[in-house]
């Protein structure tokens, strides 16, 4: 107790007041009142720490004064000790009922009075300290809650919601949901288009909670977007993101990541898993595939890691599900986990209902399981359904002539995604190889840079192939027919390629269009996807 406390002594007898004041003034500041009315006024203005109240007074008696004190918000908290000559248990009981903290009988024993007053003053002081501590706690709790909200706002404002842009025939092919825990858990998802055909998807979970996790998440997400802009391999993206994050990462935070780049033209999924939960693919035939491989540790922890990647072809109707550990580690009242088994079971059942329906089914299944138990971590789910490439046409431009070696690899993926007959695929391989090597030799005799556009389209059972280049005029159809009857050892080495192309294709035409050579070819392909083989 640092400050001297104030005691109000109330008695109609001057002698009594002098006696009490004399005993207590050494330790406390004394206020006096000689009537009940006066006592109420001083109590209200002087804010004493304790009131010694005589019961028997003319006019307003001690009980009445006490009643008024307790009825007033301002004075209610001041402890009251009755000091009285009355010696009746009922009186004492009434005094306590009115809210007094003690009852001292006259004649007064000075040591007992002092001891009891001291006790009440100490209690009062402690109560005051507690109240002060409580208000500090309350305001810092309010500040923390404010911070929680800030963290959540950062987190939620960064999640894209434009699923409508990825809608195929009325149903969204892409859907994601993040349900934050009370305290931000650092989950995020993102999706964005890298080109007409390339779609980047990612789901991550930052270590830790609250504002730091939300900020680290924001940094990670921004980094991924900027890296993905000029890198087409998820291994490169994660490797770079890891380098930047782990540089000067004094807080030792890290993030689990699953990043995928999906090529919608050919159904190719390129992905890297950095310490993240294994995603699932629900195939259109209902089979569940767990993408169990990890291509490196969590990102942001250790610099200098070269992350790996994987490639997989999706078929029409296949759905990719990516989630965070908030799903599998959601807990019910009994403390058991939602678990990957339950998730897999649900995906088996609902995984083919479409992205949105499946995500919502998972979310409600998890909520049902939790049954009101407080959520400890964010829950994130992202689903992407490949709506197929059937009938669609694809084009790709190759900027370096050396790249044309990749054209056949690209075509093979395209052919596979459309269930193209293997024998036909190989014929086209030959056609592409021979036409491109001729174009490179004759349309670009002096240079190894140029732009060659390759296009494929299905129309009425025909596969249409278009090759457009910006080289000098070159009509492959004008090439002389090779002499097929001469013995092999006497034949010229060249000239066979164009001949084979004409033989293998049903139709082929050439025109010079402005400063470009345009070759159009077509061949009977049956119905893609209905190939009898």
């Amino acid at each position, binding site marked *: 107790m640092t400050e001297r406390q104030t005691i109000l002594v109330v008695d109609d007898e001057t002698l009594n007041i002098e006696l009490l004041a004399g005993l207590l003034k050494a330790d406390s500041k004394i206020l006096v009142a000689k009537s009940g009315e006066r006592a109420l006024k001083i109590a209200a203005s002087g804010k004493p720490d304790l009131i010694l109240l005589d019961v028997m007074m003319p006019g307003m008696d001690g009980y009445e004064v006490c009643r008024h004190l307790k009825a007033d918000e301002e004075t209610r908290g001041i402890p009251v000790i009755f000091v009285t000559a009355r010696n009746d248990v009922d009186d004492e009981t009434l005094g306590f009922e009115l809210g007094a903290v003690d009852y001292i009988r006259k004649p007064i024993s000075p040591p007992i009075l002092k001891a009891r007053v001291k006790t009440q003053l100490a209690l009062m002081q402690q109560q005051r300290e507690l109240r002060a501590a409580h208000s500090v706690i309350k305001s810092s709790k309010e500040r923390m809650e404010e911070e929680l909200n800030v963290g959540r706002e950062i987190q939620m404002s960064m999640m894209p919601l434009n699923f409508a842009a990825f809608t195929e025939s009325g149903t969204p092919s892409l859907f994601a949901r993040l349900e934050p825990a009370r305290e931000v858990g650092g989950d995020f998802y993102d999706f964005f288009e890298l080109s007409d055909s390339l779609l980047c998807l990612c789901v991550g979970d930052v270590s830790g909670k609250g504002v730091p996790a939300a900020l680290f998440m924001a940094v990670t997400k921004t980094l991924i977007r900027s890296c993905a802009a000029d890198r087409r391999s998820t291994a490169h993206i994660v490797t770079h993101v890891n380098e930047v994050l782990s540089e000067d990462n004094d807080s030792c935070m890290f993030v689990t990541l699953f990043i995928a780049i999906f090529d919608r033209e050919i159904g190719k999924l390129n992905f890297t898993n950095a310490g993240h939960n294994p995603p699932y693919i629900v195939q259109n035939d209902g089979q569940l595939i767990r993408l169990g491989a990890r291509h490196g540790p969590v990102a942001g922890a250790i610099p200098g890691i070269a992350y790996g990647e994987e490639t997989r072809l999706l078929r029409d109707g296949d759905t990719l599900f990516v989630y965070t550990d908030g799903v599998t580690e959601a807990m019910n009242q009994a403390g058991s986990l939602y678990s990957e088994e339950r998730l897999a079971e649900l995906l088996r059942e609902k995984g083919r209902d479409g992205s949105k329906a499946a995500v919502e089914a998972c979310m409600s299944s998890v909520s049902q399981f939790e049954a009101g138990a407080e959520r400890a971590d964010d829950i994130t789910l992202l689903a992407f359904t490949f709506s197929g490439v059937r009938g669609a046409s694809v084009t790709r431009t190759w900027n370096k002539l050396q790249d044309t*070696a990749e054209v*056949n690899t690209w075509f093979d993926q395209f052919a596979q995604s459309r269930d193209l007959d293997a*024998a036909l695929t*190989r*014929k086209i*391989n*030959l056609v592409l*190889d*021979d036409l*491109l*090597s001729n174009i490179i030799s004759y349309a670009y005799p002096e240079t190894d840079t140029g732009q060659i556009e390759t296009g494929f389209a299905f129309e009425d059972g025909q596969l249409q192939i278009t090759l457009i280049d910006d080289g000098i005029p070159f009509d492959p159809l004008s090439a002389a027919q*090779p002499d*097929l*009857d001469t*013995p*092999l*050892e006497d*034949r010229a*080495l*060249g000239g*066979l*390629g164009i*001949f*084979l192309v004409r*033989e*293998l294709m049903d139709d082929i035409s050439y025109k010079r269009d402005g400063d470009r050579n345009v070759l159009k070819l077509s061949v009977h392909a049956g119905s893609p996807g209905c190939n009898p083989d």
Partner: protein
Amino acid sequence: MSILSSKIQGVSVILPDGRLDTNNYLDAEKLVAAHVEAGDTKIIFDFSKTDYVSSAGLRVILKAAKLVRADGKIALCNSNEQIHEVLEISGFLDMLDHYGSLEEAMQSVAD
């Protein structure tokens, strides 16, 4: 895409793996030339591991024929549908024999 070759009972066997096209025909030509330089006159192209052959691949066979001339022997075997069609269209099957297995091809050049 790699091209393997081996010498079995005095016969050089060329085994293109994957594609035989613009991207690797030069490697195949070098292999054939090395065998001929070493004195081999019997060459078999085994396409059992080959997905497709473009005209660049045919060029390799043609070059082999030129190198061994009339005193050598060249046989083909194990082509898939596409390779067989290309060999046929280009008239190669009029000049060279094609067999369903490596053993038969070996026998044909052994005599």
